[in-house]
Protein backbone atom coordinates (compact mmCIF):
# COMPACT_ATOMS: atom_id res chain seq x y z
CA UNK A 1 0.00 0.00 0.00
CA UNK A 2 2.80 2.40 0.95
CA UNK A 3 4.47 1.81 -2.38
CA UNK A 4 1.28 2.45 -4.33
CA UNK A 5 0.27 5.66 -2.59
CA UNK A 6 2.85 7.80 -4.46
CA UNK A 7 1.48 6.51 -7.78
CA UNK A 8 -2.04 7.43 -6.71
CA UNK A 9 -0.92 10.90 -5.61
CA UNK A 10 0.97 11.37 -8.88
CA UNK A 11 -2.18 10.46 -10.82
CA UNK A 12 -4.21 12.89 -8.74
CA UNK A 13 -1.67 15.67 -9.19
CA UNK A 14 -1.52 15.12 -12.96
CA UNK A 15 -5.31 15.27 -13.23
CA UNK A 16 -5.53 18.28 -10.93
CA UNK A 17 -2.99 20.09 -13.11
CA UNK A 18 -5.13 19.78 -16.25
CA UNK A 19 -6.89 23.16 -15.75
CA UNK A 20 -3.50 24.81 -15.12
CA UNK A 21 -2.04 23.50 -18.39
CA UNK A 22 -5.05 23.32 -20.69
CA UNK A 23 -7.03 26.48 -21.20
CA UNK A 24 -9.61 24.93 -23.54
CA UNK A 25 -12.94 24.66 -21.78
CA UNK A 26 -13.87 21.82 -24.14
CA UNK A 27 -10.95 19.62 -23.08
CA UNK A 28 -11.60 20.37 -19.44
CA UNK A 29 -15.23 19.29 -19.81
CA UNK A 30 -14.08 16.11 -21.56
CA UNK A 31 -11.71 15.30 -18.70
CA UNK A 32 -14.47 16.05 -16.18
CA UNK A 33 -16.91 13.71 -17.94
CA UNK A 34 -14.28 10.98 -18.23
CA UNK A 35 -13.52 11.25 -14.51
CA UNK A 36 -17.24 11.17 -13.70
CA UNK A 37 -17.58 8.05 -15.84
CA UNK A 38 -14.55 6.57 -14.09
CA UNK A 39 -16.27 7.17 -10.74
CA UNK A 40 -19.27 5.07 -11.87
CA UNK A 41 -16.91 2.35 -13.11
CA UNK A 42 -14.92 2.35 -9.85
CA UNK A 43 -18.15 1.89 -7.94
CA UNK A 44 -19.28 -1.02 -10.16
CA UNK A 45 -15.82 -2.54 -10.00
CA UNK A 46 -15.86 -2.73 -6.20
CA UNK A 47 -18.92 -4.97 -6.22
CA UNK A 48 -18.50 -6.60 -9.63
CA UNK A 49 -14.72 -6.77 -9.91
CA UNK A 50 -13.51 -7.35 -6.37
CA UNK A 51 -16.73 -9.00 -5.19
CA UNK A 52 -17.67 -10.92 -8.34
CA UNK A 53 -21.32 -9.79 -8.05
CA UNK A 54 -22.28 -8.45 -11.48
CA UNK A 55 -24.92 -5.78 -11.03
CA UNK A 56 -27.19 -4.89 -13.94
CA UNK A 57 -29.02 -2.27 -11.92
CA UNK A 58 -26.36 0.02 -10.52
CA UNK A 59 -28.58 2.92 -11.53
CA UNK A 60 -30.54 2.24 -8.34
CA UNK A 61 -27.68 3.81 -6.32
CA UNK A 62 -27.00 6.52 -8.86
CA UNK A 63 -30.64 7.60 -8.93
CA UNK A 64 -30.79 7.49 -5.14
CA UNK A 65 -27.85 9.90 -4.92
CA UNK A 66 -29.31 12.24 -7.49
CA UNK A 67 -32.82 12.20 -6.02
CA UNK A 68 -31.74 12.53 -2.37
CA UNK A 69 -29.72 15.54 -3.45
CA UNK A 70 -32.62 17.07 -5.37
CA UNK A 71 -35.19 16.38 -2.63
CA UNK A 72 -32.90 17.75 0.10
CA UNK A 73 -32.37 20.98 -1.83
CA UNK A 74 -35.81 21.51 -3.33
CA UNK A 75 -38.11 20.16 -0.63
CA UNK A 76 -36.05 20.88 2.51
CA UNK A 77 -34.05 23.89 1.39
CA UNK A 78 -30.69 22.39 2.34
CA UNK A 79 -27.52 23.50 0.63
CA UNK A 80 -25.81 21.17 -1.85
CA UNK A 81 -22.88 20.64 0.52
CA UNK A 82 -25.28 19.50 3.23
CA UNK A 83 -27.02 17.22 0.72
CA UNK A 84 -23.76 15.49 -0.27
CA UNK A 85 -23.36 13.34 2.86
CA UNK A 86 -27.08 12.56 2.80
CA UNK A 87 -26.86 11.37 -0.82
CA UNK A 88 -23.79 9.22 -0.12
CA UNK A 89 -25.36 7.69 2.99
CA UNK A 90 -28.57 7.15 1.03
CA UNK A 91 -26.64 5.14 -1.58
CA UNK A 92 -24.98 3.03 1.12
CA UNK A 93 -28.29 2.49 2.87
CA UNK A 94 -30.03 1.35 -0.32
CA UNK A 95 -27.06 -0.97 -0.86
CA UNK A 96 -27.58 -2.54 2.55
CA UNK A 97 -31.36 -2.76 2.10
CA UNK A 98 -30.98 -4.56 -1.24
CA UNK A 99 -27.96 -6.59 -0.21
CA UNK A 100 -29.40 -7.89 3.06
CA UNK A 101 -32.22 -10.02 1.60
CA UNK A 102 -30.42 -10.79 -1.67
CA UNK A 103 -27.23 -12.06 -0.03
CA UNK A 104 -29.10 -13.64 2.90
CA UNK A 105 -30.94 -15.85 0.42
CA UNK A 106 -27.75 -16.50 -1.50
CA UNK A 107 -28.60 -15.09 -4.92
CA UNK A 108 -25.57 -15.07 -7.21
CA UNK A 109 -24.59 -14.93 -10.85
CA UNK A 110 -27.38 -14.25 -13.29
CA UNK A 111 -29.97 -14.15 -10.48
CA UNK A 112 -28.07 -11.34 -8.79
CA UNK A 113 -27.83 -9.40 -12.05
CA UNK A 114 -31.54 -9.75 -12.75
CA UNK A 115 -32.65 -8.93 -9.22
CA UNK A 116 -30.58 -5.71 -9.12
CA UNK A 117 -32.17 -4.73 -12.42
CA UNK A 118 -35.60 -5.41 -10.92
CA UNK A 119 -34.79 -3.18 -7.91
CA UNK A 120 -33.72 -0.37 -10.24
CA UNK A 121 -37.01 -0.75 -12.12
CA UNK A 122 -39.01 -0.63 -8.87
CA UNK A 123 -37.24 2.62 -7.92
CA UNK A 124 -37.83 4.01 -11.40
CA UNK A 125 -41.56 3.28 -11.23
CA UNK A 126 -41.78 4.78 -7.71
CA UNK A 127 -39.91 7.95 -8.70
CA UNK A 128 -42.20 8.16 -11.72
CA UNK A 129 -45.32 7.97 -9.56
CA UNK A 130 -44.96 10.24 -6.53
CA UNK A 131 -45.19 14.02 -6.71
CA UNK A 132 -42.64 14.22 -3.91
CA UNK A 133 -39.97 13.16 -6.44
CA UNK A 134 -41.48 15.20 -9.24
CA UNK A 135 -43.18 12.14 -10.82
CA UNK A 136 -42.70 11.89 -14.58
CA UNK A 137 -41.63 15.51 -14.90
CA UNK A 138 -38.48 14.99 -12.88
CA UNK A 139 -36.75 17.48 -10.61
CA UNK A 140 -34.69 20.56 -11.24
CA UNK A 141 -32.44 22.29 -8.75
CA UNK A 142 -32.22 26.04 -8.74
CA UNK A 143 -29.36 27.57 -10.67
CA UNK A 144 -27.27 29.34 -7.98
CA UNK A 145 -23.74 29.59 -9.38
CA UNK A 146 -20.99 29.59 -6.80
CA UNK A 147 -18.73 27.14 -5.00
CA UNK A 148 -20.89 27.55 -1.88
CA UNK A 149 -23.71 25.77 -3.75
CA UNK A 150 -21.45 23.22 -5.49
CA UNK A 151 -22.26 24.94 -8.79
CA UNK A 152 -18.87 26.10 -9.94
CA UNK A 153 -18.69 29.03 -12.31
CA UNK A 154 -15.33 27.85 -13.62
CA UNK A 155 -15.17 24.43 -15.34
CA UNK A 156 -12.05 23.62 -13.31
CA UNK A 157 -14.22 23.58 -10.18
CA UNK A 158 -16.26 20.63 -11.41
CA UNK A 159 -13.11 18.84 -12.57
CA UNK A 160 -11.48 19.16 -9.15
CA UNK A 161 -14.69 18.18 -7.37
CA UNK A 162 -15.15 14.96 -9.33
CA UNK A 163 -11.42 14.27 -9.08
CA UNK A 164 -11.71 14.26 -5.28
CA UNK A 165 -14.52 11.70 -5.55
CA UNK A 166 -12.47 9.56 -7.95
CA UNK A 167 -9.48 9.74 -5.57
CA UNK A 168 -11.69 8.54 -2.71
CA UNK A 169 -12.89 5.68 -4.93
CA UNK A 170 -9.33 4.74 -5.91
CA UNK A 171 -8.23 4.88 -2.26
CA UNK A 172 -11.10 2.54 -1.40
CA UNK A 173 -10.04 0.18 -4.20
CA UNK A 174 -6.41 0.24 -3.03
CA UNK A 175 -7.59 -0.44 0.51
CA UNK A 176 -9.57 -3.43 -0.82
CA UNK A 177 -6.47 -4.76 -2.50
CA UNK A 178 -4.38 -4.57 0.65
CA UNK A 179 -6.76 -5.04 3.54
CA UNK A 180 -8.05 -8.09 5.30
CA UNK A 181 -11.60 -7.14 4.25
CA UNK A 182 -10.56 -6.93 0.59
CA UNK A 183 -8.82 -10.29 0.74
CA UNK A 184 -11.96 -11.83 2.21
CA UNK A 185 -14.07 -10.24 -0.54
CA UNK A 186 -11.84 -11.70 -3.26
CA UNK A 187 -11.92 -15.07 -1.50
CA UNK A 188 -15.72 -15.00 -1.54
CA UNK A 189 -15.63 -14.15 -5.25
CA UNK A 190 -13.28 -17.01 -6.08
CA UNK A 191 -14.97 -19.69 -4.00
CA UNK A 192 -17.65 -18.75 -1.54
CA UNK A 193 -17.95 -22.18 0.05
CA UNK A 194 -14.22 -22.46 0.62
CA UNK A 195 -14.13 -18.94 2.05
CA UNK A 196 -16.93 -19.82 4.46
CA UNK A 197 -15.13 -22.97 5.49
CA UNK A 198 -12.15 -20.80 6.44
CA UNK A 199 -14.37 -18.71 8.67
CA UNK A 200 -15.09 -15.76 6.36
CA UNK A 201 -18.49 -14.22 7.04
CA UNK A 202 -19.45 -14.07 3.35
CA UNK A 203 -22.72 -12.30 4.03
CA UNK A 204 -21.13 -9.46 5.98
CA UNK A 205 -18.30 -9.09 3.47
CA UNK A 206 -20.66 -8.83 0.49
CA UNK A 207 -22.90 -6.45 2.39
CA UNK A 208 -19.92 -4.19 3.07
CA UNK A 209 -18.97 -4.24 -0.60
CA UNK A 210 -22.45 -3.34 -1.84
CA UNK A 211 -22.70 -0.50 0.72
CA UNK A 212 -19.34 0.93 -0.35
CA UNK A 213 -20.21 0.53 -4.01
CA UNK A 214 -23.63 2.13 -3.46
CA UNK A 215 -22.09 5.10 -1.62
CA UNK A 216 -19.65 5.83 -4.46
CA UNK A 217 -22.34 5.44 -7.12
CA UNK A 218 -24.59 7.81 -5.18
CA UNK A 219 -21.75 10.33 -5.15
CA UNK A 220 -21.79 10.02 -8.93
CA UNK A 221 -25.54 10.71 -8.92
CA UNK A 222 -25.02 13.71 -6.65
CA UNK A 223 -22.36 15.06 -9.01
CA UNK A 224 -24.58 14.51 -12.07
CA UNK A 225 -27.34 16.52 -10.42
CA UNK A 226 -24.98 19.42 -9.66
CA UNK A 227 -23.46 19.41 -13.12
CA UNK A 228 -26.65 19.10 -15.16
CA UNK A 229 -29.21 20.43 -12.63
CA UNK A 230 -31.93 18.06 -13.78
CA UNK A 231 -32.97 14.46 -13.14
CA UNK A 232 -35.96 12.35 -14.21
CA UNK A 233 -36.81 8.68 -13.58
CA UNK A 234 -35.26 7.20 -16.77
CA UNK A 235 -32.11 9.33 -16.38
CA UNK A 236 -31.73 8.40 -12.72
CA UNK A 237 -32.88 4.78 -12.59
CA UNK A 238 -32.83 3.77 -16.27
CA UNK A 239 -30.60 1.20 -17.89
CA UNK A 240 -28.10 3.55 -19.52
CA UNK A 241 -26.32 4.52 -16.29
CA UNK A 242 -26.14 0.87 -15.22
CA UNK A 243 -24.65 -0.02 -18.58
CA UNK A 244 -22.16 2.86 -18.45
CA UNK A 245 -20.85 1.79 -15.04
CA UNK A 246 -20.45 -1.82 -16.13
CA UNK A 247 -18.97 -1.03 -19.53
CA UNK A 248 -16.31 1.31 -18.15
CA UNK A 249 -15.20 -1.32 -15.64
CA UNK A 250 -15.14 -4.16 -18.15
CA UNK A 251 -13.34 -2.25 -20.88
CA UNK A 252 -10.80 -1.00 -18.37
CA UNK A 253 -10.29 -4.29 -16.58
CA UNK A 254 -12.47 -6.03 -14.01
CA UNK A 255 -10.95 -6.16 -10.55
CA UNK A 256 -8.05 -3.85 -11.37
CA UNK A 257 -7.68 -0.67 -9.29
CA UNK A 258 -7.00 1.76 -12.15
CA UNK A 259 -8.95 -0.23 -14.80
CA UNK A 260 -12.12 1.89 -14.63
CA UNK A 261 -10.09 5.10 -15.07
CA UNK A 262 -8.37 3.64 -18.14
CA UNK A 263 -11.70 2.39 -19.46
CA UNK A 264 -13.44 5.72 -18.91
CA UNK A 265 -10.78 7.73 -20.74
CA UNK A 266 -10.59 5.17 -23.58
CA UNK A 267 -14.37 5.21 -24.07
CA UNK A 268 -14.50 9.01 -23.86
CA UNK A 269 -11.78 9.24 -26.52
CA UNK A 270 -13.59 6.70 -28.67
CA UNK A 271 -16.84 8.64 -28.30
CA UNK A 272 -15.12 11.81 -29.48
CA UNK A 273 -13.50 9.96 -32.36
CA UNK A 274 -16.78 8.48 -33.61
CA UNK A 275 -18.47 11.87 -33.30
CA UNK A 276 -15.70 13.36 -35.41
CA UNK A 277 -15.98 10.60 -38.01
CA UNK A 278 -19.71 10.05 -38.39
CA UNK A 279 -21.21 13.08 -36.69
CA UNK A 280 -23.32 13.17 -33.56
CA UNK A 281 -25.46 10.04 -33.54
CA UNK A 282 -25.90 8.81 -29.97
CA UNK A 283 -27.69 5.63 -31.08
CA UNK A 284 -24.83 4.53 -33.30
CA UNK A 285 -22.25 5.18 -30.60
CA UNK A 286 -24.19 3.10 -28.08
CA UNK A 287 -24.46 0.32 -30.69
CA UNK A 288 -20.69 0.56 -31.05
CA UNK A 289 -20.34 0.26 -27.26
CA UNK A 290 -22.38 -2.95 -27.51
CA UNK A 291 -19.98 -4.33 -30.11
CA UNK A 292 -17.02 -3.33 -27.92
CA UNK A 293 -18.58 -5.05 -24.90
CA UNK A 294 -18.92 -8.31 -26.86
CA UNK A 295 -15.39 -8.05 -28.28
CA UNK A 296 -13.89 -7.31 -24.85
CA UNK A 297 -15.58 -10.32 -23.27
CA UNK A 298 -14.53 -12.50 -26.20
CA UNK A 299 -10.94 -11.45 -26.70
CA UNK A 300 -9.76 -9.32 -23.78
CA UNK A 301 -11.45 -10.53 -20.60
CA UNK A 302 -8.98 -8.73 -18.35
CA UNK A 303 -9.57 -5.42 -20.09
CA UNK A 304 -7.16 -2.71 -21.18
CA UNK A 305 -5.44 -2.70 -17.80
CA UNK A 306 -4.90 -6.46 -18.08
CA UNK A 307 -3.46 -6.02 -21.56
CA UNK A 308 -1.12 -3.31 -20.28
CA UNK A 309 0.09 -5.55 -17.46
CA UNK A 310 0.69 -8.41 -19.88
CA UNK A 311 2.74 -6.17 -22.19
CA UNK A 312 4.76 -4.86 -19.24
CA UNK A 313 5.53 -8.36 -18.05
CA UNK A 314 6.52 -9.43 -21.56
CA UNK A 315 8.81 -6.39 -21.78
CA UNK A 316 10.49 -7.31 -18.49
CA UNK A 317 10.98 -10.87 -19.60
CA UNK A 318 12.50 -9.68 -22.88
CA UNK A 319 15.18 -7.71 -21.10
Amino acid at each position, binding site marked *: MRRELPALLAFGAAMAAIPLIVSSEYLMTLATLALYSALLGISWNILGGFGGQYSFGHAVFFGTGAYVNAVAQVRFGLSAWAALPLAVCGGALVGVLIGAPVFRYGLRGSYFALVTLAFAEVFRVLANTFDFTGAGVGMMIQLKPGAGQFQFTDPSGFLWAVLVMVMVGLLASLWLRHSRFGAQLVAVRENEDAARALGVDAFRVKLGAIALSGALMAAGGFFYMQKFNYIDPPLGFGASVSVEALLVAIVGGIGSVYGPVVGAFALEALGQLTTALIGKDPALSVALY*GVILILMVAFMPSGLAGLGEKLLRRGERGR
Partner: protein
Amino acid sequence: MFADSILWPALLNGLTMGSVYVLIALGLTLIYGVLHIINFAHGSLLMLAMYLVLMLFQGAGVDPYAAIPLLVLAMFALGYGLQRFVISRASHARDENILLVTLGLSLVIENLAIHFFHSDPRSLETAYSINTVDVLGAHVSVPRALAVAGALVCGAALWYLMARTDLGRAIRAVAKERQGAMAVGIDVRHIFAMSFGIGLACVGVAACFLLPMYYVSPHVGNSFVLVAFTVVVLGGMGSFAGSIIGGIIVGLVESLCGLYLGESLSQIGVFVIFIAILLFRPLGLLGHRA
Protein backbone atom coordinates in the same frame (compact mmCIF):
# COMPACT_ATOMS: atom_id res chain seq x y z
CA MET B 1 -72.78 -11.72 -14.69
CA PHE B 2 -69.86 -9.35 -14.13
CA ALA B 3 -70.99 -7.21 -17.03
CA ASP B 4 -71.55 -4.05 -15.04
CA SER B 5 -68.34 -4.17 -13.01
CA ILE B 6 -64.94 -3.04 -14.17
CA LEU B 7 -63.29 -6.06 -12.63
CA TRP B 8 -64.27 -8.56 -15.31
CA PRO B 9 -62.88 -6.54 -18.25
CA ALA B 10 -59.71 -5.98 -16.23
CA LEU B 11 -59.39 -9.72 -15.61
CA LEU B 12 -59.93 -10.45 -19.30
CA ASN B 13 -57.40 -7.79 -20.19
CA GLY B 14 -54.91 -9.43 -17.83
CA LEU B 15 -55.63 -12.86 -19.26
CA THR B 16 -55.06 -11.77 -22.87
CA MET B 17 -51.94 -9.74 -22.08
CA GLY B 18 -50.77 -12.68 -19.99
CA SER B 19 -51.12 -14.91 -23.04
CA VAL B 20 -48.73 -12.67 -24.92
CA TYR B 21 -46.31 -12.92 -21.99
CA VAL B 22 -46.66 -16.69 -22.23
CA LEU B 23 -45.73 -16.56 -25.92
CA ILE B 24 -42.69 -14.41 -25.22
CA ALA B 25 -41.63 -16.45 -22.21
CA LEU B 26 -41.98 -19.89 -23.83
CA GLY B 27 -38.89 -19.20 -25.93
CA LEU B 28 -37.04 -18.00 -22.87
CA THR B 29 -38.11 -21.09 -20.91
CA LEU B 30 -36.28 -23.21 -23.44
CA ILE B 31 -33.22 -20.96 -23.68
CA TYR B 32 -32.85 -19.93 -20.02
CA GLY B 33 -34.93 -22.45 -18.14
CA VAL B 34 -33.65 -25.59 -19.82
CA LEU B 35 -30.17 -24.74 -21.06
CA HIS B 36 -29.41 -21.81 -18.75
CA ILE B 37 -28.28 -19.45 -21.49
CA ILE B 38 -29.16 -16.11 -19.92
CA ASN B 39 -30.51 -14.33 -22.96
CA PHE B 40 -30.66 -10.70 -21.96
CA ALA B 41 -31.33 -9.77 -25.60
CA HIS B 42 -34.68 -11.59 -25.55
CA GLY B 43 -36.63 -8.32 -25.48
CA SER B 44 -34.68 -6.60 -28.21
CA LEU B 45 -34.90 -9.70 -30.42
CA LEU B 46 -38.67 -9.57 -29.93
CA MET B 47 -38.58 -5.92 -31.00
CA LEU B 48 -36.59 -6.90 -34.09
CA ALA B 49 -39.16 -9.58 -34.97
CA MET B 50 -41.97 -7.06 -34.52
CA TYR B 51 -40.34 -4.67 -37.00
CA LEU B 52 -40.00 -7.60 -39.40
CA VAL B 53 -43.75 -8.28 -39.12
CA LEU B 54 -44.46 -4.58 -39.62
CA MET B 55 -42.23 -4.36 -42.71
CA LEU B 56 -43.76 -7.49 -44.24
CA PHE B 57 -47.20 -5.97 -43.70
CA GLN B 58 -46.39 -2.50 -44.99
CA GLY B 59 -44.06 -3.55 -47.77
CA ALA B 60 -45.65 -6.72 -49.11
CA GLY B 61 -49.12 -6.64 -47.59
CA VAL B 62 -48.55 -9.88 -45.65
CA ASP B 63 -51.13 -10.34 -42.91
CA PRO B 64 -49.38 -10.62 -39.51
CA TYR B 65 -50.84 -14.07 -38.85
CA ALA B 66 -49.92 -15.30 -42.34
CA ALA B 67 -46.37 -14.14 -41.59
CA ILE B 68 -45.95 -16.71 -38.79
CA PRO B 69 -44.12 -19.34 -40.93
CA LEU B 70 -41.78 -16.70 -42.35
CA LEU B 71 -41.02 -15.31 -38.91
CA VAL B 72 -40.44 -18.78 -37.50
CA LEU B 73 -37.88 -19.53 -40.22
CA ALA B 74 -36.15 -16.15 -40.07
CA MET B 75 -35.89 -16.02 -36.27
CA PHE B 76 -34.82 -19.66 -36.06
CA ALA B 77 -31.98 -19.01 -38.51
CA LEU B 78 -30.98 -15.85 -36.64
CA GLY B 79 -31.03 -17.65 -33.31
CA TYR B 80 -29.05 -20.63 -34.53
CA GLY B 81 -26.40 -18.33 -36.00
CA LEU B 82 -26.23 -16.03 -32.97
CA GLN B 83 -25.73 -18.86 -30.49
CA ARG B 84 -23.33 -20.85 -32.64
CA PHE B 85 -21.14 -18.03 -33.94
CA VAL B 86 -21.46 -15.19 -31.43
CA ILE B 87 -22.75 -16.07 -27.96
CA SER B 88 -21.03 -19.42 -27.43
CA ARG B 89 -17.75 -18.26 -28.93
CA ALA B 90 -17.58 -14.95 -27.10
CA SER B 91 -18.67 -16.17 -23.69
CA HIS B 92 -16.21 -19.02 -23.01
CA ALA B 93 -19.06 -20.96 -21.34
CA ARG B 94 -19.20 -18.66 -18.29
CA ASP B 95 -22.58 -17.46 -17.03
CA GLU B 96 -21.48 -13.87 -16.39
CA ASN B 97 -20.02 -13.66 -19.87
CA ILE B 98 -23.21 -14.91 -21.53
CA LEU B 99 -25.04 -12.20 -19.62
CA LEU B 100 -22.61 -9.52 -20.81
CA VAL B 101 -22.52 -10.73 -24.41
CA THR B 102 -26.30 -10.81 -24.70
CA LEU B 103 -26.43 -7.38 -23.02
CA GLY B 104 -24.03 -6.18 -25.74
CA LEU B 105 -26.27 -7.75 -28.39
CA SER B 106 -29.32 -5.97 -27.01
CA LEU B 107 -27.45 -2.63 -27.07
CA VAL B 108 -26.51 -3.21 -30.70
CA ILE B 109 -29.98 -4.31 -31.84
CA GLU B 110 -31.85 -1.60 -29.93
CA ASN B 111 -29.64 1.24 -31.05
CA LEU B 112 -29.46 0.13 -34.67
CA ALA B 113 -33.27 0.07 -34.56
CA ILE B 114 -33.27 3.65 -33.24
CA HIS B 115 -30.91 4.60 -36.04
CA PHE B 116 -32.89 2.99 -38.85
CA PHE B 117 -36.51 3.12 -37.66
CA HIS B 118 -36.38 6.20 -35.37
CA SER B 119 -37.91 6.25 -31.92
CA ASP B 120 -41.57 6.89 -32.71
CA PRO B 121 -43.95 4.05 -31.84
CA ARG B 122 -45.72 2.44 -34.80
CA SER B 123 -48.68 0.13 -34.95
CA LEU B 124 -50.38 -1.98 -37.52
CA GLU B 125 -54.04 -1.69 -38.56
CA THR B 126 -55.78 -4.71 -40.05
CA ALA B 127 -59.39 -4.93 -41.18
CA TYR B 128 -60.27 -7.01 -38.13
CA SER B 129 -58.26 -5.12 -35.49
CA ILE B 130 -61.33 -3.30 -34.21
CA ASN B 131 -63.66 -6.33 -34.27
CA THR B 132 -64.49 -7.69 -30.88
CA VAL B 133 -65.90 -10.87 -29.45
CA ASP B 134 -68.28 -10.84 -26.53
CA VAL B 135 -67.12 -12.78 -23.45
CA LEU B 136 -69.79 -12.77 -20.74
CA GLY B 137 -70.63 -9.17 -21.44
CA ALA B 138 -67.12 -7.79 -21.89
CA HIS B 139 -65.62 -6.98 -25.26
CA VAL B 140 -62.34 -8.58 -26.24
CA SER B 141 -60.69 -7.55 -29.49
CA VAL B 142 -60.06 -10.31 -32.05
CA PRO B 143 -56.23 -10.07 -31.87
CA ARG B 144 -56.37 -10.45 -28.08
CA ALA B 145 -58.61 -13.50 -28.33
CA LEU B 146 -56.28 -15.02 -30.93
CA ALA B 147 -53.30 -14.46 -28.60
CA VAL B 148 -54.89 -16.72 -25.97
CA ALA B 149 -55.31 -19.49 -28.54
CA GLY B 150 -51.80 -18.90 -29.86
CA ALA B 151 -50.26 -19.23 -26.41
CA LEU B 152 -51.98 -22.55 -25.77
CA VAL B 153 -51.10 -24.00 -29.19
CA CYS B 154 -47.50 -22.83 -28.94
CA GLY B 155 -47.13 -24.21 -25.42
CA ALA B 156 -48.54 -27.57 -26.48
CA ALA B 157 -46.27 -27.72 -29.53
CA LEU B 158 -43.18 -27.02 -27.43
CA TRP B 159 -44.22 -29.58 -24.84
CA TYR B 160 -44.63 -32.16 -27.64
CA LEU B 161 -41.27 -31.24 -29.12
CA MET B 162 -39.52 -31.65 -25.79
CA ALA B 163 -41.33 -34.75 -24.58
CA ARG B 164 -41.90 -36.79 -27.71
CA THR B 165 -39.23 -36.08 -30.31
CA ASP B 166 -35.58 -37.09 -30.61
CA LEU B 167 -34.54 -33.46 -30.73
CA GLY B 168 -36.38 -32.83 -27.46
CA ARG B 169 -34.71 -35.82 -25.84
CA ALA B 170 -31.33 -34.59 -27.02
CA ILE B 171 -32.00 -31.12 -25.58
CA ARG B 172 -33.03 -32.59 -22.25
CA ALA B 173 -29.99 -34.84 -22.26
CA VAL B 174 -27.68 -31.89 -22.86
CA ALA B 175 -29.38 -29.88 -20.14
CA LYS B 176 -29.08 -32.68 -17.58
CA GLU B 177 -25.69 -34.17 -18.32
CA ARG B 178 -23.53 -32.46 -20.90
CA GLN B 179 -20.57 -34.83 -20.72
CA GLY B 180 -22.79 -37.88 -20.94
CA ALA B 181 -24.66 -36.46 -23.92
CA MET B 182 -21.37 -35.89 -25.66
CA ALA B 183 -20.29 -39.44 -24.88
CA VAL B 184 -23.34 -40.92 -26.61
CA GLY B 185 -22.63 -38.90 -29.72
CA ILE B 186 -24.84 -35.83 -29.34
CA ASP B 187 -23.35 -32.73 -30.97
CA VAL B 188 -23.70 -30.45 -27.97
CA ARG B 189 -22.90 -27.20 -29.76
CA HIS B 190 -25.48 -28.02 -32.43
CA ILE B 191 -28.12 -28.78 -29.78
CA PHE B 192 -27.42 -25.50 -27.95
CA ALA B 193 -27.77 -23.58 -31.23
CA MET B 194 -30.94 -25.53 -32.15
CA SER B 195 -32.49 -24.68 -28.77
CA PHE B 196 -31.62 -21.03 -29.13
CA GLY B 197 -33.06 -21.08 -32.65
CA ILE B 198 -36.31 -22.69 -31.49
CA GLY B 199 -36.50 -20.22 -28.61
CA LEU B 200 -36.24 -17.33 -31.04
CA ALA B 201 -38.74 -18.96 -33.40
CA CYS B 202 -41.18 -18.69 -30.47
CA VAL B 203 -40.25 -15.02 -30.20
CA GLY B 204 -41.12 -14.69 -33.90
CA VAL B 205 -44.54 -16.23 -33.28
CA ALA B 206 -45.03 -13.94 -30.28
CA ALA B 207 -44.25 -10.91 -32.47
CA CYS B 208 -46.95 -11.94 -34.99
CA PHE B 209 -49.58 -12.20 -32.25
CA LEU B 210 -48.40 -9.12 -30.37
CA LEU B 211 -48.16 -6.51 -33.12
CA PRO B 212 -51.88 -6.38 -34.08
CA MET B 213 -52.79 -5.56 -30.46
CA TYR B 214 -49.79 -3.51 -29.39
CA TYR B 215 -47.26 -1.11 -30.90
CA VAL B 216 -43.60 -1.34 -31.74
CA SER B 217 -40.78 1.10 -30.98
CA PRO B 218 -37.06 0.46 -30.55
CA HIS B 219 -37.56 0.55 -26.77
CA VAL B 220 -40.44 -1.90 -26.65
CA GLY B 221 -38.14 -4.82 -25.80
CA ASN B 222 -37.12 -3.21 -22.50
CA SER B 223 -40.63 -3.45 -21.14
CA PHE B 224 -40.77 -7.16 -21.95
CA VAL B 225 -37.36 -8.48 -20.95
CA LEU B 226 -37.84 -8.42 -17.17
CA VAL B 227 -41.44 -9.58 -17.55
CA ALA B 228 -40.26 -12.58 -19.56
CA PHE B 229 -37.66 -13.51 -16.92
CA THR B 230 -40.33 -13.06 -14.24
CA VAL B 231 -42.65 -15.50 -16.03
CA VAL B 232 -39.90 -18.09 -16.44
CA VAL B 233 -38.75 -17.86 -12.83
CA LEU B 234 -42.30 -17.73 -11.46
CA GLY B 235 -43.45 -20.74 -13.46
CA GLY B 236 -40.38 -22.75 -12.58
CA MET B 237 -37.19 -22.96 -14.60
CA GLY B 238 -37.68 -25.14 -17.65
CA SER B 239 -41.36 -25.93 -17.11
CA PHE B 240 -43.59 -25.12 -20.09
CA ALA B 241 -46.80 -25.61 -18.13
CA GLY B 242 -45.29 -23.36 -15.47
CA SER B 243 -44.63 -20.67 -18.06
CA ILE B 244 -48.27 -20.73 -19.16
CA ILE B 245 -49.50 -20.39 -15.58
CA GLY B 246 -46.79 -17.86 -14.74
CA GLY B 247 -47.52 -15.71 -17.79
CA ILE B 248 -51.21 -15.54 -17.02
CA ILE B 249 -50.57 -14.71 -13.34
CA VAL B 250 -48.20 -11.92 -14.37
CA GLY B 251 -50.77 -10.57 -16.84
CA LEU B 252 -53.50 -10.63 -14.19
CA VAL B 253 -51.31 -9.03 -11.51
CA GLU B 254 -50.30 -6.25 -13.89
CA SER B 255 -53.88 -5.60 -14.90
CA LEU B 256 -55.16 -5.57 -11.30
CA CYS B 257 -52.31 -3.35 -10.11
CA GLY B 258 -53.20 -0.96 -12.93
CA LEU B 259 -56.84 -1.04 -11.83
CA TYR B 260 -56.32 -0.53 -8.10
CA LEU B 261 -53.00 1.33 -7.84
CA GLY B 262 -53.19 3.44 -11.00
CA GLU B 263 -51.67 3.06 -14.43
CA SER B 264 -48.18 4.27 -13.50
CA LEU B 265 -47.79 1.63 -10.79
CA SER B 266 -49.13 -1.24 -12.91
CA GLN B 267 -45.73 -2.85 -13.47
CA ILE B 268 -44.58 -2.66 -9.89
CA GLY B 269 -46.48 -5.81 -8.92
CA VAL B 270 -44.58 -7.76 -11.56
CA PHE B 271 -41.18 -6.63 -10.27
CA VAL B 272 -42.17 -7.32 -6.67
CA ILE B 273 -43.26 -10.85 -7.67
CA PHE B 274 -39.95 -11.34 -9.43
CA ILE B 275 -37.89 -10.27 -6.42
CA ALA B 276 -40.05 -12.21 -3.98
CA ILE B 277 -39.95 -15.44 -6.03
CA LEU B 278 -36.17 -15.24 -6.42
CA LEU B 279 -35.76 -14.70 -2.70
CA PHE B 280 -38.30 -17.10 -1.24
CA ARG B 281 -39.03 -19.75 -3.83
CA PRO B 282 -36.36 -19.75 -6.55
CA LEU B 283 -37.77 -23.06 -7.84
CA GLY B 284 -40.92 -21.30 -8.99
CA LEU B 285 -44.45 -22.66 -8.86
CA LEU B 286 -43.92 -25.86 -10.84
CA GLY B 287 -40.17 -26.25 -10.51
CA HIS B 288 -38.69 -29.40 -9.07
CA ARG B 289 -34.96 -30.19 -9.16
CA ALA B 290 -32.79 -28.05 -6.91
